[in-house]
């Protein structure tokens, strides 16, 4: 399977995250999540809202990269202040790219290392992860499925809340948290195992369940039969060519 075919398979699988969301703001951070949200808005959920990744809600997804003659179709002003109004109201589903994810779905983009005061590697900071994770649905895209990304213990800095009962404040339930899909270069997973355990949903062509478990730092729930992630349809491929006219997604897996 070529690199580009794998990337397109991943984007199409990721677009399914928004299928049943109805009229919510779809935010995809990074090129794969953004193309996946764009594809969803043009296929499986036409009621989605997206922004131009700057300050406007647009009536159709904006192609990535230099736009040439393309003019964005503005529908609503959506500066950062209003993004938070939307987040706090809950009508959003974001797909983000954490550096670390643990068995609870707790995720980290802040820093790596054992000493928070003196990080081994300082990254971005928690950004909007704490607010996103307790306010609305979230999915993850992890381009390099490995035990470094899917860590054995808890992530080094819990930037987004997960299904960890030990961290619930009084009066809150695990059902107040809504983590949907994890899409990686190997497979699609969700939190549908017993007690919100991470469950293997589908394997990309040529990948085995054993290989995924080997690359994951915690035990996965593997159902008796695991499907293969479907190949993109001709319609999806045509839309992707339009949404990514310069083929920027080719390097999405770090190739």
């Amino acid at each position, binding site marked *: 399977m070529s690199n580009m075919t794998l990337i397109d398979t991943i984007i199409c699988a990721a677009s399914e995250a928004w299928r049943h969301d109805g009229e919510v703001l779809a935010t995809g951070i990074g090129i794969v999540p953004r193309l996946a949200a764009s594809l969803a808005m043009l296929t499986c959920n036409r009621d989605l809202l997206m922004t131009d990744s*700057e300050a406007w809600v647009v009536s159709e997804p904006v192609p990535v990269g230099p736009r040439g003659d393309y003019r964005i179709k503005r529908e609503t002003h959506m500066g950062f202040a209003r993004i938070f109004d939307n987040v706090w109201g809950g009508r959003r589903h974001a797909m983000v790219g954490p550096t670390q994810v643990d068995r609870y779905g707790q995720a980290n983009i802040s820093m790596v290392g054992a000493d928070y005061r*003196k990080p081994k590697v300082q990254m971005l900071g928690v950004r*909007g992860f*704490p607010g996103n994770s307790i306010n609305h649905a979230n999915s993850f895209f992890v381009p390099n499925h490995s035990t470094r990304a899917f860590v054995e213990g808890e992530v080094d800095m819990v930037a987004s809340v997960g299904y960890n009962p030990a961290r619930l404040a*009084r009066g809150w339930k695990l059902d107040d948290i809504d983590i949907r899909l994890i899409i990686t270069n190997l497979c699609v997973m969700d939190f549908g195992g017993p007690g919100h355990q991470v469950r293997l949903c589908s394997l990309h062509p040529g990948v085995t369940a054993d290989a995924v478990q080997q690359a994951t730092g915690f035990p996965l729930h593997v159902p008796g039969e695991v499907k293969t992630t479907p190949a993109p349809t001709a319609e999806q491929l045509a839309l992707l060519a339009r949404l990514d006219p310069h083929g920027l997604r080719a390097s999405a897996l770090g190739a």
Partner: protein
Amino acid sequence: MNKLVKAGDVVARLRDGMTIGIGGWGPRRKPMALVREILRSPLKDLTVVAYGGADVGMLCAAGKVKKLVFAFVSLDFIPLEPYFRAARQAGTLEVMEIDEGMLVLGLKAAGMRVPFIPTRTGLGTDVLRHLPEIKLVDSPYDDKQWVAMPALPLDVALLHVDRADARGVCQVKGPDLYMDDLYARAATHTYVSCDELVEPAAFEQGEEARYVFWERTQTTGVVHLPCGAHPSSCAPLYGFDVKHFKEYVASAKEAGGWAQYYERYIACGEDEYLRRVGGAEAVKKLPLPVF
């Protein structure tokens, strides 16, 4: 009231140990000329509150920051800010790392003169573990605990806007105000640099007053600094300077790189800075970013 001052006057009013909020967002509409004026001063031990970009990076590189209140520090198209990163990895920085929206609430609470605003944001995360000063509180209306995001009052806010008049009426025409209005309300004193200084009558025309987002009661001083946001953007007047940011980031990889950057772009003073980055005409031609 005439609120016109020089950048040097603003910095002369700052004191060691003050809490200073810096407007803008990442590489966008940062009051960089005012930041450079701080870099030229002996000020130290600052607590900086910001949606951070090179403003935070440079202040860290120069050793001005004792404590940083932040959700991220990033140049966006270059995700990691090198000098912020170096300061963190050296373990020299005291941090209050909070969610982007918690920062909104902290500034809002300060502007409203209330001690906190309740929110669910932060629940279950290490933000609370590392910041025991942020408390959970019981609600008088339900049985849940809520995060009591404390007010973040600022001694001073530094902002950059498109245009202002001498009374302190400030206008932002870019598509995003970021949280600048909240900074202006959270601060005891707000100093605003502007690309264009205009007469009060300018705001009387057409819809111009609709792009004014806080009252002049919130503006303490106005500094006329054309291209004062450079190398950050001031849409729609100019985009951010990708080439300059790349040079700045590259400097962090060299031994003594900050000293060289400082010598070339900070120590020379603002007029010479503008010449060295190509002049005002070149800055105004910097393309707006496409995301």
